[in-house]
């Protein structure tokens, strides 16, 4: 009997109510709508950004992506310096933040005694709750003067022969923006990595130790098991870094120029929109700013896509089991 009815029902009907219960059907429809709503919002946002930026897209075409000049007074708009600043500051943030976050998470899960693990974990998570404008103010009043006095001069002395650490030392610029982003994404990455490591079965640790592994070798086994989850945590942090606005704009120097030196000011897409949108008059100017938003959307998509490919690649090779995140 049941086999016959299964065939009569359409696959939709079966998906919505496998048991034939109306409550189940209603529940599933509601959940489906909620999920579709998210997709609809994303599509609506892309649609709105695309239509609002049509004037700029028509006028500049691909030269908008290649252009170096951003001059609202003369109506010349090029997005390349903003794209560079966004990607570069996020990469600096990850380079600094990932080793720290891994260290914090490993310490909390594998080494810290219970009376330390809880308060430290709590404090790290508290960092994530600080509003970004507070990070920005702290950056202006504490971080930037500190970098200017104690970090940038020795860097310029030792590594000044590379193009990376040259130019006027002001405490503001791409490096400072990257460092503040690193501080902001560390709690997110470390919290997720901690959960990932906790989810790795104890049997893995016990097996490693039983085979005579040292503690460090055992931790390596745990890390390999958690690799996909760790990569997911890094992607989450990257997402935050790409879109972060307030703290970065207060420290990065807000200058749409591409310079090899990390000491020089730079600019991110999100900062440019936040800075200029309120006072933007003229349709082309507004349209160009909206197109910047569209590009940020695309950059986030592409970077996330690349990151997911990397994760997929890593999981295929290691065959990890800790798919916790």
């Amino acid at each position, binding site marked *: 009997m049941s086999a016959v009815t299964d065939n009569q029902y359409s696959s939709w009907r079966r998906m919505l109510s496998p048991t034939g219960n109306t409550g*189940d059907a209603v529940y599933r429809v509601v959940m489906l709508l909620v999920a579709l709503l998210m997709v609809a919002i994303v599509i609506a946002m892309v649609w709105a950004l695309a239509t609002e930026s049509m004037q700029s897209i028509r006028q500049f075409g691909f030269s908008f992506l290649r252009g170096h000049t951003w*001059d609202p007074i003369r109506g010349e708009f090029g997005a390349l310096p903003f794209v560079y600043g966004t990607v570069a500051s996020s990469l600096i943030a990850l380079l600094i933040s990932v080793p720290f976050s891994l260290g914090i998470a490993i310490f909390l899960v594998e080494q810290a005694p219970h009376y330390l693990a809880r308060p430290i974990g709590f404090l790290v998570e508290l960092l994530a709750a600080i509003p970004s404008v507070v990070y920005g103010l702290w950056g202006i009043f504490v971080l930037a003067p500190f970098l200017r006095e104690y970090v940038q001069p020795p860097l310029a002395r030792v590594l000044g022969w590379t193009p990376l650490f040259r130019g006027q030392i002001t405490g503001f610029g791409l490096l400072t923006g990257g460092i503040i982003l690193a501080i902001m994404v560390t709690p997110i990455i470390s919290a997720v990595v901690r959960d990932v490591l906790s989810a790795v079965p104890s049997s893995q640790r016990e097996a490693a130790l039983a085979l005579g592994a040292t503690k460090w070798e055992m931790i390596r086994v745990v890390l390999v098991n958690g690799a996909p989850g760790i990569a997911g945590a890094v992607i989450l942090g990257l997402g935050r870094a790409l879109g972060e606005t307030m703290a970065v704009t207060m420290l990065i*120097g807000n200058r749409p120029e591409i310079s090899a030196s990390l000491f020089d000011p730079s600019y991110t897409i999100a900062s440019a929109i*936040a*800075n200029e*949108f309120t*006072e933007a008059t003229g349709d082309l100017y507004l349209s160009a700013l909206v197109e910047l938003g569209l590009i940020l959307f695309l950059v986030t998509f592409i970077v996330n896509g690349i990151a997911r490919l990397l994760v997929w690649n890593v999981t295929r090779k290691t065959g990890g089991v800790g798919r916790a995140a």
Partner: protein
Amino acid sequence: MSVSKRSFQLVACLSIFVFLLIGIACNHGGGGNGGGTVSLHGAGASFPNPLYQKWLSEYEKVHANVRIDYQSIGSGGGIKQLKEQTVAFGASDAPMKDEDMKSAPGEVVHVPTVLGAVVITYNLAEVKQPLRFTPEVIADVYLGKIKKWNDAKITADNPGVTLPANDITVVYRSDGSGTSAVFTDYLSKVSTEWKEKVGTGTSPKWPIGLGAKGNEGLTGQVKNTPNTIGYTELAYAVQNKLPVALIKNAAGNFVEPTIDAVVAAAAASAATIPDDLRVSITNAQGAQTYPISSYTYILVYKNQQDAGKGKALADFLWWGIHDGQNFAKALQYAPLPPEIVKKAEAKINSMTAGGSPLRS
């Protein structure tokens, strides 16, 4: 059965949520005047926001039946919302451009409310007395042509001041702002090179320097970074006790930025002000005028659609250019000189609804 009950509750909750959203959206557009009270919405420039908020709270004390709110969203946003008729009045630091006036759905009237000034501030720990700048020096520093503090062009105007041999770090406002517009308007008037290379605007393409967000960001960067130079609003510099430079005006005198010097700049140009009151008073004539001064305006439609709201708006503006002026100095704004008040009165009196004047 409890499962379906719960899901119905969920559906109910969701639909209530959706209706709430729709309700909020509708309410925003409506803005009723039920119960005899008139409500007016305004939006625009952030520079006069502290004064306007003071006005609103004082005005409500004497006119309980009028509710006015003001959103400090920036001059550009104020003009945009006025053109889209989502606000009763807009506010802008710079007068509206001709093309904006043309594309507005009705004739827009500019009512000047107060005056402000842009001051040059700097961070040089060893310099105690205020520095003196000529217009050429300011332009050259912001063009990147003067690079050191002890450049001969700077020291020439500052005898007896020992200036360090350090690089100048130029700081500008990265957010689009009326302050930048006034400053670049001044530089365009005093330097042809500036006018050709950069021009006047809220977000120009700065030839050199670091961008700081907002008055607070700029002040923070200048205060915390040695050898910086920046520009900010007079009110902000006074409240934060920043060192401010004396600037050589069109008459050749070095003038300190004070409220009196700003009023003098407005008074000096009162005779030549155009009928629509759209004017830039930077680099004004007169012996004691401070050269980087400007009006800030409230923008309204000459022809109001709703007589009741229009009357309330005209009355509020009238109060603002008279009683409201008394609150200006305490908040570091320069009050309008009497001859400008007369001209602003005429503008308010020209407001009509359905052909009949609103104030008579």
